[in-house]
């Protein structure tokens, strides 16, 4: 029986339990003469039903989960132990365990588990597998066949036992809940406690995600640093990962972070130089000058820019803006030298800047409107013009908040991927000419991880080291920015 069916049956048992429990509770409650009774029902019948549902399903499902994990671990350890008697070397033993694992899968797929159907030799099985479109490693040996067959049949047995026990648990839970129903049973409180735990569990997913991000990237990064010296990574100025075939000598490759970091920061800088004045002035104009009608048209238009996916900006850069800048520079120099390459820091920066305009303007809009009206009115009453009020009073007062907003924007710029993948180029070099191509951390993460790669080479692991660098960089900026913004808000509240 497949897992899906067992889960469905358990849920079905739960539903039936709900129905009967609610009915029983209702019957008990109906039997009470409310005028004279000393006891009145505590919970509504539906709560008795839910309690029965919970008792029938949750223990059974949890048991199923634990059982399947535990039986998997047990089978795995038996395979490892058996393989170890044939192959003493632990590294090749783990490889052989992997082969046994695949053999088990093939046996199950081809329905060859029972002893009378089991192929005599590994070579024979391999042939039959490849006829069915499955690939087995060529270094397998004959002793693996009975082992795999035993693993498969034991796995089947364990699964069957586990499913049977889970169903028994479900029935037991249902009947236990049913037998417990009394007038004064605090069914509602018990259900609510379970609900509360569910809510807490849902909120912990945010923590789990962060932990997952940190642990997974940390693990792979440590793995990477065991093969490449961290000093060469953090201070190397040459990026040349060399996608060499595994095993060929001298395929070390150089993983220097500096050119990528420089490109990332340079592009972010260009985009901020474009987005900050534009976004800030747009926010100021809309907040201080624009009439209600203008605002109601312009604000959603600028917010549209924020809703456009970054891949669209990337295509805009590649198809329209990049060629335009190239042709423009060609025309400026008289038609023979395009000093702006179509993939360049400049193009990527401008396009990213366009994407950041609404981010800057909405964040600084929040900050500016948080400045108390009394300060603005006071300044205007003293005879300052509006622009003087904004420049001399409001902006200085809002400065910490604006700095926080800019930090948040900069962290967006640093983590942006699709625009730079398409518009910035892949050449990792150090240059100060903004019209040449540079590359960024995110581009290299995508480059190293797309396509078919073996997983344990430094060429792929470096992506996790880059990712961790990016994560730490943006996390630091975000935490600091949120701290500044929060402090700033408290100041005026």
């Amino acid at each position, binding site marked *: 029986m497949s897992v899906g069916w067992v889960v469905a049956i358990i849920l079905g048992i739960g539903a039936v339990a709900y129905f009967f429990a609610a009915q029983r509770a209702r019957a008990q409650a109906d039997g009470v003469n409310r005028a004279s009774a000393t006891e009145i029902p505590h919970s509504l019948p539906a709560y008795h039903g839910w309690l029965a549902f919970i008792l029938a399903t949750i223990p059974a499902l949890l048991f199923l989960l634990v059982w399947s994990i535990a039986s998997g671990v047990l089978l795995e350890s038996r395979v490892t132990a058996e393989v170890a008697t044939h192959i003493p070397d632990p590294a090749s033993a783990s490889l052989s365990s992997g082969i046994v694992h695949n053999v088990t899968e093939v046996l199950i797929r081809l329905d060859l588990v029972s002893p009378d159907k089991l192929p005599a030799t590994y070579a024979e099985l391999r042939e039959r597998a490849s006829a069915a479109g499955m690939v087995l490693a060529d270094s397998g040996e004959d002793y693996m066949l009975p082992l795999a067959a035993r693993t498969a049949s034991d796995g089947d047995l364990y699964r069957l036992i586990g499913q049977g026990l889970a169903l028994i648990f479900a029935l037991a839970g249902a009947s236990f809940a049913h037998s417990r129903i009394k007038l004064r049973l605090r069914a509602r409180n018990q259900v609510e406690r379970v609900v*509360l735990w569910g*809510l*807490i569990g*849902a*909120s912990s*997913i*945010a*923590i789990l*995600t962060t932990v997952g*991000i940190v642990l997974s*990237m940390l*693990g*792979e990064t440590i793995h990477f640093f065991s093969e490449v010296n961290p000093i060469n990574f953090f201070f190397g100025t040459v990026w040349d990962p060399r996608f060499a075939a595994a095993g060929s000598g001298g395929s070390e490759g150089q993983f220097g972070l500096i050119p990528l970091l420089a490109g990332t920061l340079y592009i972010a800088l260009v985009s901020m130089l474009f987005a900050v004045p*534009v*976004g*800030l*002035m*747009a926010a100021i*104009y809309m907040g201080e000058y624009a009439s209600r009608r203008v605002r109601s048209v*312009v604000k959603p238009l*600028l917010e549209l*820019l924020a*809703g*456009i*996916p*970054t*891949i*669209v*900006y990337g*295509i805009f850069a*590649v*198809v*329209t803006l990049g060629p335009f800048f190239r042709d423009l520079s060609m025309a400026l120099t008289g038609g023979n030298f395009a000093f702006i390459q179509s993939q360049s820091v400049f193009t990527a920066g401008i396009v990213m800047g*366009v994407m950041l*305009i*609404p981010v800057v*303007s909405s964040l600084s809009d929040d900050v500016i409107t948080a400045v108390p009206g009394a300060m603005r009115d006071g300044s205007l009453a003293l005879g300052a*013009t*509006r*622009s*003087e009020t904004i420049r001399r009073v409001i902006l200085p007062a809002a400065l910490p908040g604006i700095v926080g907003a800019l930090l948040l924007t900069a*962290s*967006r710029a640093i*983590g*942006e*991927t*699709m625009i730079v*993948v*398409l518009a910035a180029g892949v050449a990792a070099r150090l240059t100060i000419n903004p019209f040449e191509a540079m590359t960024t951390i*995110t581009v290299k*993460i995508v480059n190293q*991880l*797309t396509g078919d790669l073996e997983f344990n080479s430094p060429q792929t692991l470096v*992506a996790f080291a880059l*990712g961790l660098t990016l*994560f730490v960089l*943006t*996390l630091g900026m*975000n935490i600091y920015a*949120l701290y500044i913004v929060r402090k700033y808000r408290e100041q005026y509240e």
Partner: protein
Amino acid sequence: MTDAAMTSTAMQSQATASRRDFGLKKRHRDEALFRFYGIAAITIGVAFLAILLFSIVSKGYTAFVQTSITVPVEFSAELIDKDNERATNPRVLVSANYPVLARNAVAKALGVDLADRAAMREIQAFVSDGSRSILREIVTADPNVIGTTRPVTLLAAADLDSANKGQIDLRVAEQNRKVSDQQLRWLEQLKQQGAISTPFNWGLLSFGASSRPETAGLGVALIGSAYMMLIVLVLALPIGVAASIYLEEFAKKNPFTDFIEVNINNLAAVPSIVFGLLGLAVFINFFGMPRSAPLVGGLVLTLMTLPTIIIATRAALRSVPPSIRSAALGIGASRTQMVFDHVLPLATPGILTGTIIGLARALGETAPLLLIGMVAFVANYPSTPLEPATALPVQIFMWTNEAERAFVERTSGAVMVLLVFLALMNILAIVLRRRFERRW
């Protein structure tokens, strides 16, 4: 004396004037300039929006029509089933050389001698190789057509399609052009016969991946994106709402809740590509889920969308006035009953709006999907979320790497499809907000 007095009065009045205007002219000039900067900033923003949309639409709208050639095709028994063995060996019908049928049909319509090899080669480039499956389907559906002649509408090859749409630069020398002068003359001839038509390009929305532009479409990508959106909706909405309810209605202020809050705020600002790395390391490597599967993509996007939904839901819950809570508690509801029976229903429009906006962001997200192997050449529709598929933005990204002219047009066309979906979702969100949001 008089002179001096006059001068001094004049000087005095001048001095007074200058003391009174406080450089007013300059200040007003600054004011106007400042105002102008503001208008300029807004103009720049709106202008870029307009240029962006215009450049996409002007390049992409032609992708929605596809040049087709309708010619009488002779289903010659000699070419399809020479030895007349289709009754015993139906594979003949599948493996027959159908492109030759299409080529011959076009040649006949143009009055070209079938023996003229050079001309036939140029005609071969007229009809898409995708005509193979069109003709095969006609024959396998009804083998009786063999030996008859009937008009069939075939897809034109990508280069001819571009030529028909006027996208081939005729000033380029003939040998550097994808379409020869002879082919252009033939195209004109076919047009006069009324054989050329440009119907709406349904294939753009239904075909899977293909290396030939005219048979490449977004079908697989749309299904993959639909699976992912479904997974995000099914997982992120309940989890997000549950987390928000806990944080907003139950949680007491303690280090644990603070820690959750910090985590949610930070996750909302973590670069999306980091979620891709998480998916690769945890879902694919650790849990052994299949690469390129919409299931993994959906899980990654769920984690990415969760903070957005939580933040929106908390705002919606906060906007329900405390008096509702007090009233519910006052007539004897428990806290849980108060939340689920009174607060949550009132917050639903806000929650749904936030969820739709989160989904729209997830729909346009590309970077994390690249890392979990959604960049795949998938020609067949996935029937479950565990089979390989691509996603709409990833398909767009893959097409940008194709060099052919027809793919440039399709890239922009696909962007238009994506933007239409995003616009629909946002309009739905706005309508929901306008229609159901209550102000207290």
